[in-house]
C-alpha cells in the first residue's frame, strides 16, 4: 500500500500541549514539512521563545535552545555567528516578538542577520491567560482591556511586517494566515521560501502567520477562523512585504 500521508520527520512524535482548535499545531506541521522538504534537519537549530510555544523544543526533532522572553533573535544570532552553516530559526508569538522582544527583532533585521523567524500573531497573550498583546486590535476585549482596546489609553496594534519592510537588512518578509486550506498552502510556501532565503545567504527572513486563540478569544475553533478573517485580515493584510 502506498503511504500518502505521514508525520514529518522533524516533528516529534509527542502529544502537544496546545488547546483544542489552536492553530499552533498546523503551523508547527507546516514548519516541519518545509524543513523535511528542504532536507535541512541535520544542520538545523531552533530557538523556542516564551509564550504558548514555550515547549516547542519538545516538538521539533532538531537541536533546540530555549530563549528568555523576547530574546530569541539575539540567541539565534549567537548560534548563527558560531555556526554560519547551520540553519537557525526562531518560533515566537506576538507578545514575545512585538512587545518585550521588539529591540531584538528589529536589530536582528537591521543587521541582516541570516536567520528565519516564524512569527505567530494571534492578537493576544495566550499562555498567561488572555491579556492584551501589542497586536490586540482596537476594541478587542481581553483580560487587561476589559472595555475593549482603547487607542487613547492603550495605543495602536503594531504592524510588524510593514515596519520590517522599511529596514534595509530584511531579505524576505511575508504575512500569511492559516484560516483556510488555500491560505494554509500559501503559508507553507512562505515558510519554505523564508528558509530558502537563509540557505541562499540572503539575510533576515520573517513570516508572520495570523493565527487563532479560541480559548482566550472565547470562541469555538470555527468561529475563531471567521473572527480572524473579519477582524484581523483587514488590519493585517496578507502579502509579501519585502523580497530581495
Amino acid at each position: 500500500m502506498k503511504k500518502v500521508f505521514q508525520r514529518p520527520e522533524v516533528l516529534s512524535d509527542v502529544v502537544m500541549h496546545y488547546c483544542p482548535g489552536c492553530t499552533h499545531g498546523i503551523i508547527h506541521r507546516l514548519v516541519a514539512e518545509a524543513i523535511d522538504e528542504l532536507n535541512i534537519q541535520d544542520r538545523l537549530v531552533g530557538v523556542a521563545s516564551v509564550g504558548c510555544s514555550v515547549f516547542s523544543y519538545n516538538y521539533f526533532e532538531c537541536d533546540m535552545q530555549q530563549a528568555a522572553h523576547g530574546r530569541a533573535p539575539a540567541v539565534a544570532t549567537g548560534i548563527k555567528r558560531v555556526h554560519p552553516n547551520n540553519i537557525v530559526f526562531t518560533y515566537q508569538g506576538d507578545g514575545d516578538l512585538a512587545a518585550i522582544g521588539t529591540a531584538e527583532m528589529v536589530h536582528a533585521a537591521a543587521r541582516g542577520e541570516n536567520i528565519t523567524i516564524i512569527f505567530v500573531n494571534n492578537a493576544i497573550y495566550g499562555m498567561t491567560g488572555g491579556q492584551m498583546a501589542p497586536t490586540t486590535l482596537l476594541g478587542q476585549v481581553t483580560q487587561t482591556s476589559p472595555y475593549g482596546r482603547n487607542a487613547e489609553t492603550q495605543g495602536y496594534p503594531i504592524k510588524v511586517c510593514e515596519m520590517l519592510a522599511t529596514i534595509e537588512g530584511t531579505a524576505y518578509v511575508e504575512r500569511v494566515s492559516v484560516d483556510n486550506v488555500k491560505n494554509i498552502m500559501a503559508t507553507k510556501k512562505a515558510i519554505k521560501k523564508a528558509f530558502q532565503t537563509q540557505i541562499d545567504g540572503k539575510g533576515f527572513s520573517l513570516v508572520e502567520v495570523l493565527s487563532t486563540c479560541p480559548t482566550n478569544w472565547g470562541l469555538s475553533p470555527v468561529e475563531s477562523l471567521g473572527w480572524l478573517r473579519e477582524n484581523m485580515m483587514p488590519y493585517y493584510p496578507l502579502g509579501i512585504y519585502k523580497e530581495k
Partner: protein
Amino acid sequence: MSDKVLMKGNEAIAEAAIQAGCRYFFGYPITPQNEIPEYMSKRMPKVGGVYLQAESEVAAINMVYGAAGAGARVMTSSSSPGISLKQEGISYIVGSDLPCVIVNIVRGGPGLGGIQPAQSDYFQAVKGGAHGDYHLVVLAPSSVQEAVDLMTDAFDIADMYRVPVMLLGDGMLGQMMEPVEFKEQKGRDLPSKEAWATTGTKGKRRKNVVNSLYIDPKELEDLNIKRFERYKQIEANELRYEMINCDDADIVLVAYGTTARVANSAMRSARSEGLKVGLIRPITLWPFPVEAFQKAVQTTKAFLAVEMSMGQMVEDVRMAINGAKPVHFYGRTGGMVPTPSAIIEELKKILGGER
C-alpha cells in the same frame, strides 16, 4: 612570548581572552570598559573570531547564551549599569548550565552613578544579582598582570564546571597601564561539549536541547541540587587567596582587587612604624576563602576590611570570623579611592582602642 609590554588593563584583558581561545565577543559600549570591545573589534577579525556590537547589554548577554549553547568559547564585558541589564541572561545561562566569561569593570553607583572606580557590585556579583538559586565564580585580580594570568583559568573553570565566571575588576584596573607578560598558558583537559551543544545533529545523534524550563518541581529541585554539587567541587578545587604577614599580625587587613594594593602599601608603611599588620587578599570572591580567616583568627586580634563601597565584602569576612574576633570596616564610595594614610589612621585607632 616572555617580553613585557605596556598595556591598559582593559586591552590586556581582551588580549588575554583571545589568547585563552575566546573567539566570540558580544558587547555594548559603556565607560570605563570601552577598550575591551574596541580591542576585540580590532583583533577578532584577525584571528578568525566574531566581534558583534549588540543593540543592548540585554541582547549581548543573550547572544552569549546562544553562542555558549552552540559550544563556543565566548565572553562579554560591561560596567555596573550594563551588568545589571545582563542579569536576566546570566540567570538563564546558569539555568541552562552554559559556560561563559563576563567581565565587570565596576564603576560607582547606584543608578547611573559615576564613571570612577568602585567595588559596590560585590553583592550583585557574589550574592546573586539575578533570580534563582545560583553562584557565579567571581575572580578579582589586583593587577593587570593578574587579570591576564587569570583569564585562561576563567574560561577553563567555566568549561570544566559548565558555569558562568565573572572577572570583577574596577575602573582603576581597566584604565591603568602596567607592564604585562603574556605567559604560555597550559590550559586544562576539559570535558567535550558534544553531549549538549547545539551544533546541528548532522544526522549522527539525538537532538541536544539547551533549556532552563522545568515544570516538574521535583525535576527542578534535583537539577539545582546537582548544580550545587558542582559548586562544592569548585569550592574544593578553585579557591584562590593571598595571605601576607599574617603569622605575627595583631591586626589583619582584608581587601581585594586594586584596593588590596592600597592596603598592601598601608601594611608596609605600618610595619615600618612597628605596627604588626597583615593582609588577606581574596582572589576568588566566590568561593570566598573562609579557610584563610580560620587560620588568621587563631593568632590575630582584629580584622579591618577595606573596600571601595559602603561595606559589602565585610559581611563575608564577618561570617568567616563568626564573632571570634572584632571585624572593622573602612570604605570609600562613589568613585573615591582609599589612601594608605587613611588606612593607617584607621589601624592606629583600632590598635589604640579608639574603635
